[in-house]
């Protein structure tokens, strides 16, 4: 597997401009002869499909949801970063670049991150023009707030619903192209495989979820924007439908999967309340702007939070990281919460929780201001827990949230399969081993609005349009495999529900490949996952028919892929013998319990190549060269 990142030469601030000039162009009259498939309609997918259609390409867009507006980007709360420096507080493109590389614990590609910071400013312009109702100051200018891992205020927001508003902007741009006939939309349609022909990605095989009908679609290029894989842990902040199938199936067709072990466990989520739980709810990181995190100083202090005096409280983030305090990056904040709870200082049922306290902020600003800033989040918290956060501190605990790992892509966002592009959370991304808050929305929209519309032209210009249709034998072969797999799934009439397998897998992954990992635990997981998978294919229950609306079958297919993919995650975690960002190997930590990187041996992206079912995948590396940001031990003290 060749890993050529195609990073343009020259100074970092000139690379993207230079590259845009050097790329080949498709002339306007020829664009309509090219067809592009886009899978997924979140921020990356919807913005890509709309922007490419505006350029004149024929676009087909697919999503498993009943409407493109429902993709999980919609649930992002806090905000989107951009290096506008509107606050005059020392921000710049270079600082956003620097913060992101450092925040990712030096495991991202410098050139990509710099480009991300550059186009961040265009994103805000674009979204404002679309009518995204960002928060504003009384003077009518855009408002900003601060977010974890940064000491400047560069986050733009629309109440606690920033993802929703940005997605509706992209969705509306997409609907505009649908009504103009330049995008053909396939909602309620799930991609089940990629078709590779003549060494290029030439299409996909999909299942219409309403009818169960399998169809295939040919195109000149395929773009995957199918999001992350946090539900491998069963309980996560993701939508219950989020899954790894599209990217995992692409991996099996030859796309390298990079850093699958890099997952983000978000520090501020509502703790688990019982075995019935189907998902975990995130409380936006923006709450850490005003909320203070603490646990009692005394182990097992049974007093209600309000009766614990100041002197008996341990504001452990402020204590350990005085300069960043409650705004420490996510990986650091999550690990610190785990450390306190493991040591017996946790609060709430099972001791798996810490307090996020707004009493000081309410006293300082008044309840009205806090209500304006976080009203919808406080309401949501109260609805779920039946506790009033204006009166008692919130209880929070970390939960799986985001995948930094994903399909490997070069500077053009193309995977190791020519013609297969990957955007947003689905690619291995610009976030290295840890993503900073408000950067996912930025990356999704950067990829979709500003990068792929440029880079895909270079690929298409080098290849004549057409030349293959759905009648080609390659499509028949993949369709046949998809059918066989569905036949196998639908014939499972065992004794255990698919859900119970998913829960068991999730527990294995959370315990052994979650916030803390070690060689022994990972080896155990690598034993248990194949056994669980084998049991699944013998004893799972799938009800209903194949060619029908069948939610039982949909779930079974996704869980079957998680059962394979989980093994790759553990393998990656086991092979990366260092701690970095969200990947915390307990064997590798500093005396103070911080992540201990090994730049000598692991300053690279690990890229896994599928070598056939039953064979061990092969690990390749893309070395990461840092010319601008000096490799240092990350410090937030």
């Amino acid at each position: 597997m060749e890993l050529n990142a195609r990073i343009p030469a020259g100074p970092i601030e000139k690379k993207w401009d230079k590259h845009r000039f050097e790329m080949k162009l498709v002339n306007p009259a020829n664009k309509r002869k090219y067809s592009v498939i886009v899978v997924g309609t979140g921020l990356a997918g919807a913005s890509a499909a709309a922007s490419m259609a505006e350029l004149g390409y024929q676009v087909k867009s697919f999503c498993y949801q009943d409407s493109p507006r429902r993709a999980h980007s919609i649930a992002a709360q806090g905000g989107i970063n951009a290096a506008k420096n509107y606050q005059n507080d020392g921000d710049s493109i270079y600082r956003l670049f620097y913060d992101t590389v450092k925040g990712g614990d030096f495991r991202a590609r410098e050139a990509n991150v710099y480009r991300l910071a550059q186009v961040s400013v265009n994103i805000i312009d674009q979204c404002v023009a679309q009518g995204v109702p960002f928060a504003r100051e009384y003077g009518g200018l855009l408002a900003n707030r601060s977010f974890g891992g940064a000491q400047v205020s560069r986050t733009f927001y629309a109440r606690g619903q920033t993802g929703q508003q940005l997605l509706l902007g992209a969705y509306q741009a997409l609907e505009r192209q649908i009504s103009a006939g330049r995008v053909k939309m396939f909602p309620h349609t799930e991609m089940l495989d990629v078709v590779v022909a003549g060494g290029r990605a030439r299409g996909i095989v999909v299942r219409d979820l309403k009818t169960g009908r399998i169809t295939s679609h040919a195109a000149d290029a395929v773009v995957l924007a199918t999001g992350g894989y946090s539900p491998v842990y069963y309980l996560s902040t993701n939508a219950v439908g989020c899954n790894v199938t599209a990217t995992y199936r692409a991996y099996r067709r030859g796309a390298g999967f990079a850093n699958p072990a890099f997952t983000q466990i978000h520090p501020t989520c509502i703790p688990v309340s019982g075995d019935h739980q189907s998902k975990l709810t995130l409380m936006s990181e923006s709450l850490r702007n005003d909320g203070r995190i603490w646990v009692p100083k005394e182990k097992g202090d049974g007093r209600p939070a309000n009766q614990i005096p100041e002197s008996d409280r341990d504001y452990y983030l402020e204590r350990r990281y005085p300069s960043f305090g409650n705004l420490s990056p996510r990986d650091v904040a999550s690990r610190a919460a785990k450390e306190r709870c493991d040591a017996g200082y946790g609060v709430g049922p099972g001791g798996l929780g810490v307090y996020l306290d707004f009493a000081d902020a309410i006293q300082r600003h008044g309840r009205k201001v806090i209500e304006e800033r976080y009203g919808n989040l406080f309401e949501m918290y109260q609805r779920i827990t039946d506790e009033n956060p204006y009166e008692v501190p919130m209880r929070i605990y970390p939960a799986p949230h985001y995948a930094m790992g994903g399909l490997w892509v070069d500077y053009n966002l193309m995977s190791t399969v020519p013609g297969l592009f990957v955007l947003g959370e689905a690619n291995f991304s610009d976030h290295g081993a840890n993503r900073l808050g408000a950067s996912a929305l930025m990356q999704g929209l950067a990829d979709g609005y500003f990068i792929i519309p440029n880079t895909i032209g270079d690929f298409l210009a080098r290849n004549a349009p057409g030349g293959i249709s759905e009648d080609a034998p390659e499509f028949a072969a993949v369709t046949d495999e998809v059918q066989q797999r569905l036949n196998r799934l639908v014939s499972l009439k065992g004794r255990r529900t698919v859900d119970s397998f998913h829960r068991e897998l999730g527990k294995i992954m959370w315990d052994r490949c979650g916030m803390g990992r070690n060689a022994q635990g990972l080896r155990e997981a690598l034993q248990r996952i194949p056994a669980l998978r084998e049991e699944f294919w013998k004893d799972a229950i799938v009800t209903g028919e194949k060619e029908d609306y069948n939610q039982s079958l949909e779930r079974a297919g996704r869980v079957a892929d998680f059962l394979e993919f989980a093994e790759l995650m553990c393998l990656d975690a086991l092979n990366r013998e260092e701690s970095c960002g969200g990947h915390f190997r307990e064997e590798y930590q500093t005396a103070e319990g911080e992540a201990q990187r090994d730049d000598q041996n692991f300053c690279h992206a690990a890229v896994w190549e599928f070598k056939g079912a039953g064979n061990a995948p092969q690990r390749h590396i893309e070395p990461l060269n840092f010319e601008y940001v000096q490799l240092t031990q990350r410090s937030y003290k």
Partner: protein
Amino acid sequence: MKITLNVWRQRDASSEGSFETHQLDDVSPDMSFLEMLDVLNRRLEAEGKVPVAFESDCREGICGVCSLMISGQAHGPESGTTTCQLHMRSFKDGDTIFVEPWRAKAFPVIRDLVTDRSSLDRVIQCGGYVSVNTGSVPEANSVQVAKENADKAMDAAACIGCGACVAACPNGSAMLFTAAKLAHLSLLPQGKPEHERRIKRMVEGMDAQGFGACTNHGECQEACPKLISIEFIAKMNRDYIKASLLPEHTSSELLKAQ
């Protein structure tokens, strides 16, 4: 908690449906309504029966895919709450609950509790956007927007497109949905240039999709999980009359002259 559930089962839009009764004896008050349905479905699956089809995704009240008429109320008894955010503590031990799909001409049933709401997307296609391509846009702070307008636009833009307003309306009207989008865009300077054209097209589109008209029952506002106000419908009606008095090609010029 013990709960008796009467759940609507229906093969597809052309089949007749009926209620199916299930008894659940071990419901935790901390469960969400959908988690309670999960429990029922896992039990049905374990018995080899086909589970009840219902849609859910984000389960945090924002994606808008969950629906359900719960004992006659869209999204159940709590105000400003989607079904996925409704918890069983809102019910009493021993309650009997009826669960039905959204019922509206423009939302045909796909299976059981799942309906086809693509008609809402088609209303958006009639102009529920600002016609700007990616790239050629002014700097974000070059146009100031009064905070009050931005806030009001956000109130309207909070719509999650769940269709509760349509399901709750005796006429199956999508006026609240459409009015919210129109208000969101027309309150901002970026949405103004194509306002008259947009309002005419979206109102026509709404009718073409089979949604009914508004007769001021106000049920939509009560059912809306995001508490969107019917004052936006009043605004839409006013704006529509204004726009329809003007010939399309000159409307914006005339308005400018006023």
